[in-house]
């Protein structure tokens, strides 16, 4: 990609798990060799069942976790090497919106303090007065009222809290935001409002998103491209429309069939592709293709060779069905 703002290069993020002090150290492979790029002003959707490592990947990208292997590049710079002022700049430009609107705001701070804090940290604007003005502006941008400034988070609903979160990240004028399931805790009617708001500010402020969701329905509308993640790996990356209309990987097909659709004809055709079985533990990832234990089309080769992402049409897919 020519103007990638973010490049994730063979990233693995493992968590050490201690069973007992004498046992051999075990690793939980939350993210297991993921590569993709996000362009300027692009929204890259990331979907997958819960527990497949989406949040861990998002947190690795904003440098909450350090990758066990591989690198993340932001504007061409390896974020693992950033220090001092460069790190500060990275912290200003790359932000994250969290999934749980009830846990992501400090309950002891007023809305005004919450939104002003990032500006205090980065010493933006000359005076406290100017910061206060900016807070009011931001409240308006995200659709809250100026008199909400003195209230506490517990007085707001989930959707409003998510707006407060958004205002907090916007205070820094970010260029890249990881949205970690920002709408999955909200009512369906409110989900649309938040997506709408995110799109509006994307256009106004020229922001790129990594938009994480556990179902395809929510990301399809906002994303240009989508990656489907299973047990720590990306199994398919494609243009949003293409992935929706013509999914290649059996896992992507199953994810699609989980979206209820009004047409009973199509519904019946897709129902056959429902996912059976439990998702295996990331402590014990199956050999070869991780999805083979639940795949309706598994072949002997799937147990032996881990499929690599390869280009099929306009998409990339990691599946032996498409071996050349």
């Amino acid at each position, binding site marked *: 990609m020519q103007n990638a703002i973010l490049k994730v290069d063979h990233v693995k993020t493992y968590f050490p798990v201690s069973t007992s002090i004498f046992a051999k150290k075990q690793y939980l492979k939350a993210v297991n060799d993921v590569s993709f790029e996000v362009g300027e002003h692009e929204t890259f959707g990331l979907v997958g069942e819960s527990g497949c490592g989406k949040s861990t990947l998002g*947190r690795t990208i904003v440098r*909450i976790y350090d990758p066990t292997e591989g690198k993340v590049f932001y504007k061409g710079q390896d974020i693992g090497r950033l220090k001092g002022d460069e790190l500060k700049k990275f*912290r200003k430009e790359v932000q994250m919106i969290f999934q749980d609107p009830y846990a992501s705001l400090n309950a002891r701070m007023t809305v005004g303090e919450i939104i002003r804090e990032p500006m205090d*940290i980065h010493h933006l604007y000359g005076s406290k007065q100017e910061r206060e003005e900016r807070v009011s502006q931001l409240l308006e941008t995200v659709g809250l009222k100026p008199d909400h400034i003195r209230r506490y988070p*517990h007085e707001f*609903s989930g959707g*409003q809290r998510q707006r407060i979160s958004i205002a907090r990240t916007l205070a820094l004028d970010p260029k890249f935001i990881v949205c970690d399931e920002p709408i999955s805790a909200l009512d369906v009617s409110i989900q649309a*409002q938040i997506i709408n708001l995110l799109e509006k500010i994307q256009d106004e402020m020229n922001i790129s998103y990594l938009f994480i969701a556990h179902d395809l329905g929510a990301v399809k509308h906002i994303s240009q491209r989508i990656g489907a993640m299973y047990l720590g790996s990306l199994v398919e990356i494609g243009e949003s429309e293409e992935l929706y209309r013509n999914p290649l990987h059996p896992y992507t097909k199953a994810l699609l069939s989980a979206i209820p659709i009004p047409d009973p004809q199509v519904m019946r055709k897709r129902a056959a592709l429902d996912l059976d079985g439990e998702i295996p533990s990331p402590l014990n990832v199956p050999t070869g293709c991780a999805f083979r234990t639940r795949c309706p089309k598994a072949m002997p080769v799937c147990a032996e060779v881990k499929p690599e992402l390869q280009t099929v049409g306009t998409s990339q897919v990691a599946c032996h069905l498409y071996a050349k």
Partner: protein
Amino acid sequence: MNEEIKLTADLFEPLSEDEKNHEFIAAQSKTYFQDAWGRFKKNKMALIGLAFLSVMVILAILVPMFSPFEYDGMDLTALNEMPSLTHPMGTDKFGRDIFVRVMYGARISLSIGFSSAFICLVIGVVYGGIAGYVGGKTEMIMMRIVDILYSLPNLLIVILIMLIFGSNVISILIGICITAWIGMARLVRTQVLTLKEQEFALAAYVLGASRSRILFKHLVINCMGPIIVNVTMLVPSAIFTEAFLSFIGIGISAPAASWGTLANEARTLIESNPIQIIWPVLSICLTMLSLNFIGDGVSDAFDPKKK
């Protein structure tokens, strides 16, 4: 998943002005502490305790200032007198006014109680906060040090310190605080350990907040409830330790007087003038009782389950 959801562009419309507010939960804007105070006020016993303690504090400040008698002013013409209008609690074996001495003792006992609680608060919060937040090897070493301190015989240390530094308020404070902060440190560490994984702490980190900002402005603030409850337990236990030390004769020594010292002095006269021991003992008992009621009230007030 039986609902039929399809997201199409025409679903995404800006809200009208009043729709924007329909989700708003109307609630009185109350801070956490106002809320807790509201619950505390409902507890009668805690309020009585608070009233008693306030009166005690005010008397402890004013009585020695305005009384015509000094705490160490002897009057050999009025030994071992019974309570009267001039001496509301009578006089002791040197003719000193017991009321003034008890109020003077209140100054010493209460200030030891409050200042040792304050010292433990500061040390415990900083130490436990750093251990919990930094984690890893640092935490392991810090908490093992705490375990070792905790396993030492408490009273023995206090007595040793008194022997080395002499019997004065400072060495009593050191003696009490040297182990009393441990409970606070452990409590704060446990709280910080769970809070630091929460999304609001991660959000502060991603915003670029420094470690100390995250620790104090985000994590410690959010465990203020248990911290305050712990402080209200520390005060009576410090007062009690001091009274005990002075009673067995290694705390504050005469003519200065804490409640423990007074009880110790009166002990020798328990057969001839039993009333003299009642005053310091009563003061200790009622103060402890009040502090315990306050402690109960505070812990109920900060209990999140009681909303």
